Every structure is written in C-alpha cells, then in structure tokens.
C-alpha cells in the first residue's frame, strides 16, 4: 500500500510509505538536487564522446568535430550553468584519487587538448599537424579520455549512496552502452545527411547496441527489485507509477524498439528523412532514460528497522 505522506487528516497505516512532500513529513524524499542541467550535461557528454570515438576510429572528421564540440562546449556549458560557484570549478579536479567527479574533469581536460591536437590539422590544414608520434599519442589519449567521459557519470551516480536506485555497478556499463549507441546513431545521421559512405559495420553495430541496451535494462530492473526499499519504490514508479509512460513509451518503445525497426527499414530504403527520425527516436529514448534516472531517485525513509517494525 502506498499513499502520499504529510497530508493532514489522511488515513495512514503503519505499512504505508509514500513520497514526503516536505522534509518534516514521513516518507521517501525525491532527489531534486541534480536537475535537468546535470541530465543535459551527462547526456551530451556520453553522446559527444561516443560520437568522437566512433568518428576517430572510422576517420570521419565531421563526426569528430561534432563530438568534440558537443562535449567541450555543450557538456561543459551545462555543468557551468549548474554549479553554484562556477568560478571555482577547478577545485573539483583536486581529488582524482577519491572522486569520480574529479576523474571526469581530468578526462575532459585530456580530451579537450588531445582532441584539439587531432582536429586542428583536419580542419585548418596539414600545417597544424604535429609529429606522427605525437599524433598517435593524442589519438590514444583522446580515445581513452572519451571512453572515461562515456561512463564516469555512471560512477558519479553510483558513488552517491543516498539514492539507492543508482547503487549498482550496472549503471556505468548501461551509460557506456547508451553513449556508444548515441554516438553510432549520430555518426550514421551525419554521414547520411552529408551523403558520405557509411562503413558497413556501423548499422550492424547500431542494431547490436539496441539489443544490448535492452538486455542491460532488463538486467538492471530486477537487480533494483532486490535492492533497498527506496530503489524498489523507484522501480515501482517506473513500472506502474508516475514514470510508467516515460519508461515504456519513450525509453523502450521509442528509444529502442522504434529505433531498431526504423533502422532496419533504413538499411533498405536510405532516406534522409528517415535517418533524422531514427536519430530523434534514439536520442529521445537516451535523454529520457537519463532524466528518469535522475528525477526518479529517492532518498530512504527516515527510519530504522526497529522504529518501523514497532510502528511507534
């Protein structure tokens, strides 16, 4: 049984635990500290880094440039807008030994520099090209740092014990796979819109990632069902609560199923309009999942086993 707590005069039994609408009320507390700006930052970080890695591996300058700008401009702008004291952002890099936020900042720094080294000769001309050795090292650093950007947000959330729904090692893997999926979708879209040849493995990679992400989501939810009560309550809200439409409709139906079906059709039809629709569907599902993870997070009920069992 579930009911909203904190409403005067409402019948409440010892078993009922709902969402507390203020901090003096009994119930689960909603995670409201990390808002849509963090959602946008995490989403853009994964998307841009995923796109950059795939574009670098397939020698695709437009994809590399787009991915670079999405991360360096888009993600960082969202982070700066979110921070309470953005002028002190550098302080967040001080504890890479302990904090995933710090590791993410270092990764973004390495990515910004190495990506620039790789992009300058491609965009401005060969005069900007450094030695082969330095170029190779920059490529290795760029790929490594981009991969960290793709999954570190999962560890940032995972290492925040207050929200039980994030407390699984599956989360970084899920976000890594979604970042790769977003990157491959954008890579396909940019190539199609520019009339470029698409490497044969990319559509297959896209299909494979859609299936893998579905499997990961299917594994994530049962794991949460065996987790702490706050995680189970979030799961309930996804499956039969206020987030059901967003999860089933946007994440599963639009983000995975429709994307898969449309991309299979795209393999035979090759229409620019269709590729835009595929990108819209996939990115909608991707962004919705990130926002769902953030918004539906719950803090535990302020109680202990002994307190709640006695119902005092």
């Amino acid at each position: 049984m579930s009911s909203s707590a904190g409403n005067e005069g409402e019948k409440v039994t010892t078993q009922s635990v709902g969402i507390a609408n203020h901090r003096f009320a009994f119930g689960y507390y909603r995670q409201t500290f990390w808002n849509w700006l963090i959602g946008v930052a995490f989403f853009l970080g994964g998307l841009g880094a995923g796109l950059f890695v795939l574009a670098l591996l397939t020698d695709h300058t437009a994809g590399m440039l787009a991915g670079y700008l999405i991360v360096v401009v888009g993600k960082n702008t969202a982070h700066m807008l979110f921070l309470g004291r953005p002028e002190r952002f550098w302080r967040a890099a001080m504890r890479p030994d302990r904090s995933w936020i710090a590791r993410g900042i270092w990764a973004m720094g390495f990515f910004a520099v190495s990506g620039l080294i790789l992009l300058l000769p491609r965009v401005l001309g060969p005069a900007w090209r450094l030695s082969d050795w330095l170029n190779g090292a920059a490529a290795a650093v760029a790929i490594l740092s981009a991969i960290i950007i793709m999954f570190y947000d999962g560890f940032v959330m995972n290492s925040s014990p207050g929200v039980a729904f994030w407390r699984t090692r599956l989360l970084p893997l899920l976000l890594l796979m979604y970042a790769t999926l977003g990157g491959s979708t954008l890579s396909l879209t940019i190539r199609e819109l520019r009339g470029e040849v698409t490497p044969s493995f990319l559509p297959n990679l896209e299909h494979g990632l859609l299936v893998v992400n579905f499997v990961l989501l299917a594994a994530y939810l049962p794991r949460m069902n065996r987790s702490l009560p706050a995680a189970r309550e979030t799961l309930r809200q996804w499956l039969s609560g206020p987030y059901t439409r967003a999860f089933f409709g946007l994440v599963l139906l639009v983000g995975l199923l429709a994307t898969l079906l449309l991309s299979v059709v795209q393999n035979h039809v090759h229409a620019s309009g269709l590729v835009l629709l595929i990108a819209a569907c996939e990115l909608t599902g991707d962004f919705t999942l990130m926002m769902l993870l953030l918004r539906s997070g719950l803090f535990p009920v302020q109680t202990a086993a002994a307190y709640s069992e006695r119902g005092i």
Partner: protein
Amino acid sequence: MARYGMVIDLKRCIGCNACTLACKQENGTPEGVHFARVVTREVGTYPATKRTFLPVLCNHCSDAPCAEACPTGATYIRPDGIVLVDKEKCIGCRACNVACPYMNRHYVAKGMLKHGYGTDGLTPYEAIKFMDFEEGTNIKCALCAPRVDQGLEPACVITCPTDARIFGDVEDSNGKLQRLIKDRKGWTLSPEYNTKPNVFYLDE
C-alpha cells in the same frame, strides 16, 4: 580525542519542535533550511491512530558519504568527528546532497540570502547571520561546533524541554551515551547505508 555525537530518546520527545527553532535561532539559516527538524508520522487506522515524532539532524557519520563524495574536499571530518563544510572550497556541485541518505545537506540557492522570513529584505538579525553563508554553496549542521569548542552543548540539546537529547562523546566507554546505547539498545537511522552515524535513537 572525543568523537562527538548525540543520543535522542524518542520516549521523551513530544514533537514540540523547540530544537528546530533553537537551531534556526542559533544558526540563522535561510528560509526553508532546517539543520534540525522533527519528522512527523501518523500511524494506525482511525480511530486507533497516533502521531509519532522523529527528531533528525546531521548524523555526523564516521563514514560520512558527503565527505567522501565531495570532489573539492570542502566537506571534511574534524578529529572530534564533527562533519563541517569549508564554504571557500565549496563549488555548489551538490554531490554531497545526493550522497547523504538522510537529506541533511542544504544548498543555498541563488537569491536565497536576499530575503528573510516573511519580508522582502532582511531583518538586522538575518543580515548578520546570513553573512555566515554564501549563495551557491552547501551548508549543514555543524553540531554547533563554535559552542562545543567553548565547552557548551549544541543549541538543540540545551533547548529540549524534555531532555530528550543527550550530547557527548559516543566513544567514551564509561560515558553516559555509551551506557544509554548499550542499556537501551540504541539504534541509528538507515544502518543499511553503512555510514556509521553518531546520532543514536532510543525507544525502549
């Protein structure tokens, strides 16, 4: 070195919120920020219902997840166990808010210090007290560290009319807190989060 903490006797608490007000007065926190508060719950089914009270404050955890999550080191644990925030180092990333399972971290949003309670401007009292805070940073219960450093007890403790709060060294094996915790089977909030809180509750 002592490890400061608190024992709260739920059998004595009457839910008067004197602790909430004493804390507000001592710290002069902005509107909507309560370092100490009383979570109220109604249990039972009509007509057999009753209202229960759970006073909460920062648990000053030995394994404080807020300190662990802080990327700048702004949140730190003093040798005596009090968890504090260095506002000069805080960047307002709110990682500590998300890390704390007890919702005892508070973010001072932009504009929050420009108005007080029920007024557009600030009262002289608020104008002085708000100088302790900085917009865009995080604040929390400091267990009245400035008072503790002077040998005084936290404001919520001295104000409690029923003596439901007992402050002291939780690691002193001969102390009152240890004795109460042992004799009356003291427990902590959400032990499954493994934060090792130093605020204990008694209900036996």
